[in-house]
């Protein structure tokens, strides 16, 4: 019989840990790899074992989204400890971005959560001709030029955005996600 981390969490709450740590927050708060992207974090491509910080030239126009994790610039911790931390990056024409989206972009690169707000699937497809993000699970479509607003499908809200900036030639997180990431609460 195996029960895993959930039982440990629940027992922890029973012992009084719950006074300071709620079960939903405990791993994220305690584990730097599970923390959401932090201001001044670098970004590294998902699957890059070398954890090379991304530079703006790594993100090409008209290409599919780049999936990335934030990385603590001080100790190199890659924040891949929660799937909700997965970020998608796209380079778009700055002239076609809405004012809010442009203000969060860097060199025309925009960042959003890669986790659909409907049931938590990855927003994995890029429809280049329409410049829309697409989630194959249930067909939600988002416009990354305009805050990733929902243009089709069952997603109840836009994808939270990750503001970006360029510092010393590298792509850097300018601020936390604009809203709670993750899917529809039940």
């Amino acid at each position, binding site marked *: 019989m*195996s029960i895993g*981390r959930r039982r440990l969490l629940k027992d922890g709450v029973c012992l*009084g840990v719950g006074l300071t740590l709620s079960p939903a927050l405990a*791993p994220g708060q305690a584990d730097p790899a599970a923390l959401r992207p932090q201001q001044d974090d670098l970004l590294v491509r998902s699957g890059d*074992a070398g954890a090379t910080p991304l530079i703006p030239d790594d993100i090409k126009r008209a290409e599919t989204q780049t999936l990335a994790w934030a990385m603590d610039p001080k100790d190199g911790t890659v924040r891949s400890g929660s799937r*909700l931390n997965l970020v998608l990056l796209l380079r778009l024409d700055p002239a076609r971005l809405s004012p809010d989206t442009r203000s969060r972009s860097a060199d025309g690169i925009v960042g959003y959560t890669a986790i659909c707000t409907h049931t*938590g699937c990855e927003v994995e*497809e890029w429809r280049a001709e329409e410049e829309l993000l697409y989630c194959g699970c249930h*067909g939600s479509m988002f416009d990354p030029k305009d805050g990733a607003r929902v243009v089709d*499908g069952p997603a109840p809200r836009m994808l939270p955005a990750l503001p970006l900036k360029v510092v010393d030639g590298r792509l850097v997180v300018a601020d936390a996600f604009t809203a709670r990431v993750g899917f529809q609460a039940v």
Partner: protein
Amino acid sequence: MLETPRLIASLSAILAALAMAAGSGSAQQPPAPPVPVPPILQRYTPVTAERLRAPEDGDWLMIRRTYNGWGYSPVNQITPANVGRLRPVWVFSTGVTSGHEAPPLVHDGVLFVSTPGNQVLAIEAATGRPLWRYSDPPLEDVIALHRTSRGVALLGDKVYFASADARLVALDVRTGKEIWATRIGDNASGYYMTLAPLVAQGKVLVGASGGELGIRGFVAAFDPDTGSELWRTFTVPAPGEPGSETWPRGDQWKTGGGSVWITGNYDPETNLAYWGTGNGGPWMGDRRPGDNLYTASTIAIDVATGRIKGHFQYTPNESWDWDEVSPPILVDYERNGRTVKGLIDVARNGYLWFLERSDGPIRFVEGKPYVKQNVFRRLDPKTGRPEIDPARKPGTGTKAAFCPSLWGGKNWPPIAFNPTTRMIYIPANENLCSEIEGREVNYVPGRSFTGGISTFQVAPGADHIGEVQAWNVDTGERVWTHTFEKSPTWGPMLTTGGGLVFTGGTNDRMFRAFDATTGKVLWEVATNSGVIGQPSSFVVDGRQYIAVQAGWGVDSRGMQARLDAVSPGEFPPVPEGGAIWVFALDR
């Protein structure tokens, strides 16, 4: 290794927190006094294996009431003549959203039902008085692409529940407290559960979802008292195992899919359980050349050993997302002057299949489309194997258009069979089609592994979408069809000895009663939300009740949104939020 040890890191942090707590005086919180057990639960009698095999007429002890999967209550107090007097007796808000698909089970006047969010409720069936609530919401980063539960199972003095995050949980029927929990798959690698457990031959059986995430599907059996695993049978064979010859030489089998979405049906005479299996992984069959047994199939599993003793594959080298979600129901029917010990499956691929069961092999009898289907040119009359039109088969870099849509002619909602009318009742969606184009995809544990992008269309000239179909099982012919002009249906079926069919499923929030013989709508009521729950019927103190959960979500919500994109403004969002509804005749 970047995308790695989240569990180890989390555990380390938690252990550190526990150590802190232990040192900071946990004795300050005395244990809570035990909650008194309500009298109705003190009187509760254990559910026996015999009772599961031969329930009383007024019982509803498992998701489809009986092992044959009929969804049929023999109780006949509510009839076409009086159903107009059916009224809500009580309504109970579940407190959660997303798709409410589980049927209320009732034993000794106690109603048990599960909801999204890993919640199980025990309620006094006649009054709606809450008895206990088990709630163990999954962590926020759970992988559960279908946030639903399709029911619980009863045996002895326990309630069995399959959690979204792939644990099998046994609850104390009197208190709702967890007795044991067994992890059956690694959620971080995409294993999750939507089904109700099956209790058969003193074992608790479950399977796992996750075919869109590169899992290798399985059915597994557990000891009901301890939760220890007794056997595990994969729906995709390893090299050298029977069926492995239908896979390419390579590692494709390791991520080959074959999800188990729905509880199997069971034949106690042969001790075989019949399970449906999902599509292969990834979606495009050209990534895994071969038939890919046992994906998109029915498999007959020996409950004693877990051995697969028979199978029937509905869609070889599946490439349309046509999981064979549902198991076949067990019905003996007439064909050519002979009684066939039958299996009947209404498949997602748009065909209605009449099969023959035995103590092992499954034999093809007849197959025919029940909705527009333009992928199969014909079936082999001996084997039932479809001849597939290659122009209708998507591939990697090849777009193909086909009907029915990737959601199928019927998706997960179960059919029902009425032994008096000799009809099965099918919730079908007609006039929906898809295009899929395959893309390259690489496997990363817990990440999307479909490799396909789809669009969705309504067939030109369509005058309706949803249908309730009735077919006579002895003639193999359709008897009546009720159509829904502006709605698909996602409504599971209930039929009764009173000659009625109950179902919801439409976007107008209605729950309806049809005359089982004629298909006439005799009664309907608008609920709080869309009704995609499995209805049940039971008797308490001599009175017949009808119970169902309302709570629109998951795929019904997805289809509604995609229809609204095709016809803007015509398919607005359906109100959401779960509630249990219980109806009875006005006294």
